[in-house]
């Protein structure tokens, strides 16, 4: 049994203009102690997937269908009260923007202690001790003093570390990190990633790492999901995705990364075309209108996910055409 198992998840926003299918038939699983990367175009549904798992979708969004099992237990359909016991306790999130998730009118200490008190049976004093311990753990000096400060008094890196401290205070089984280091310089980013990996090993927790940064994915993730238009186009081990991509979108993504070792300034190779309109999803593969390899069937029928390696799945008709995929998980390793 997987720690987290998402099956055919559909989440939509019911706007006046119509139904925005932000997550559209997404399936994946997350194992204990693993780091799963999620990449994909802006607007492909990464954050909405995270919010669906925690059921913190804002109006007019809701889960339309599908299943999310945590330790085998179905989360879809749970009451808000039941979900509150899981949020921040068993599954925590670090939000894309730390400023929106830290309350500007309360001190850091106030917010940290409250989160700890709510999810554990510690009293105020014990919570405070735990808060200090957590701030130390994430490398914040003078934690007692910091507890009395407000979010705006801290630097971006420090705020992000407070968020991590808060997310980890209750030793969750799963940490969802939504672009945790985007606004930070690479030296602070390296510190924070190192810290997250250290804690992940010590606490045996699983991490869902949402990011645009393929460098971050390469350095910390065991497995990767590549999303496009609310669905998975490809998933597999990090090595499989980087060294043997089996979907045109993934290939395009890899090609468009600037190469640090290139001193000649070779022009970048972007993915041409514009992102899909989620209000008007085409019947076939959502990437087909931008895919240089698209065939007739790609525009007509949405491809299913097929195994292309022992730990590697891809939803692309090319693999079917070339006969290099199967419906059963293959025995042998991918070369």
């Amino acid at each position, binding site marked *: 049994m997987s720690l987290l198992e998402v099956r055919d998840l559909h989440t939509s926003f019911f706007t006046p203009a119509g139904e925005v299918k932000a997550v559209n038939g997404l399936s994946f699983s997350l194992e204990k102690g693993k780091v799963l990367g999620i990449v994909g*175009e802006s607007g492909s549904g990464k954050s909405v997937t995270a919010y669906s798992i925690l059921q913190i979708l804002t109006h007019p969004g809701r889960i339309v269908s599908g299943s999310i099992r945590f330790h085998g237990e179905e989360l879809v359909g749970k009451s808000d009260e039941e979900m509150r016991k899981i949020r921040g306790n068993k599954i925590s999130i670090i939000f894309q923007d730390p400023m929106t998730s830290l309350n500007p009118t309360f001190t850091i200490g106030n917010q940290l202690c409250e989160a700890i008190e709510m999810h554990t049976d510690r009293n105020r004093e014990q919570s405070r001790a735990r808060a200090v311990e957590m701030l130390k753990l994430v490398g914040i000096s003078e934690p007692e003093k910091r507890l009395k400060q407000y979010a705006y008094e801290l630097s971006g890196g420090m705020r992000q570390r407070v968020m991590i401290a808060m997310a980890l205070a209750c030793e969750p089984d799963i940490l969802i990190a939504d672009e945790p280091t985007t606004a930070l310089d690479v*030296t602070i980013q390296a510190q924070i990633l190192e810290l997250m990996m250290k804690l992940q090993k010590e606490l045996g927790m699983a991490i869902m790492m949402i990011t645009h940064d*393929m460098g971050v*994915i390469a350095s910390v993730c065991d497995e990767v999901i590549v999303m496009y238009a609310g669905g998975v186009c490809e998933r597999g081990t990090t*090595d499989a995705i*980087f060294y043997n991509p089996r979907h045109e979108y993934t290939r395009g*993504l890899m090609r468009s*990364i600037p190469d640090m070792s290139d001193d000649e300034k070779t022009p970048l190779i972007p993915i041409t075309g*514009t992102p899909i309109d989620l209000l008007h999803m085409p019947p076939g593969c959502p990437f087909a209108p931008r895919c240089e390899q698209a065939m007739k069937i790609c525009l007509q029928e949405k491809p299913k996910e097929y195994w292309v390696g022992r730990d590697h799945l891809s939803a692309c008709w090319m693999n079917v055409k070339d006969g290099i995929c199967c419906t059963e998980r293959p025995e042998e390793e991918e070369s």
Partner: protein
Amino acid sequence: MERNQAGKPASEYLVQVSHLKQYFPVSTGFLKTTMLKAVDDVSFGIRRGETLGLVGESGCGKTTVGRTLLHLYTPTEGEIWFDGEKIGSRESLKNFRKRAQMVFQDPYSSLNPRMTVADIVAEPIDVHKLCAGREAREARIRELMTLVGLNTEHATRYAHEFSGGQRQRIGIARALASNPEFIVCDEPVSALDVSIQAQVINMLEELQERLGLTYLFIAHDISVVKHISNRIAVMYLGHMMELASANELTGHPLHPYTVSLMSAVPIPDPKESRKQQRIVLEGDVPSPLKVPSGCPFRTRCSRATKECAERCPEMREASPDHFVACHHL
């Protein structure tokens, strides 16, 4: 010989900044204000037709340098020269505002959602009265939209109807409207994903070539900055630490901060990444309200000595065209 607009011989540099300071008064308690030294004694030049990259951690003063350079903020101290002319007087500013433009950091909040694309793009045209008559104005809007790869049929749509990459194109079209020679691009691709980022970077490079533009390109993604820049400047807590050609700075960084910065750039290759020797700095970036004495980097620097606490190092030319501010080099 090339000549500048004033008819004088054109210098190698289009933009020159000397001893620029930008301090902001911030309230630090009841009736107490402290000066936040966002930019503290920074000097550099930008050559004609080149792209100067500007990197550094969040809050180190990159945007403030860009805005002060364009006189969107009046400098606390220091001089800005553009095409051989000192900028500051009312007359110099009027001309300068046409010739120098800015593309803003956030494509989501920098465009007014109640304005159509046409009106956004035409803003500088209207401000500087650059087109006589409605037809000329509309033709120019179409020309600008085509230039940045926007569909001219979308001119009457509102900004919020566009994706991040498209919004960034709108911002770039607006910046180009007054036919500027110089553009400050403040993190024009940071909010975009890699594939859209590549589109916008290619477009900026094409426009530079076609229109002979000079860029100050602010970003924190080093691989993007390396790709687009001829030279790169590194800032830390309002100070400039190092300035060199893009290949030299990324290949042979000298300042301890730049060295750690380069060692920590995430490599988008799992096997290479596993071998990477990152120099992880200790401690946190100090508050800009309490910048350490002497060298601002010394509190996180493994080579810091007594001298570093006493005296702020000045930029020196360590090798041809490679400038660095450190006592130990």
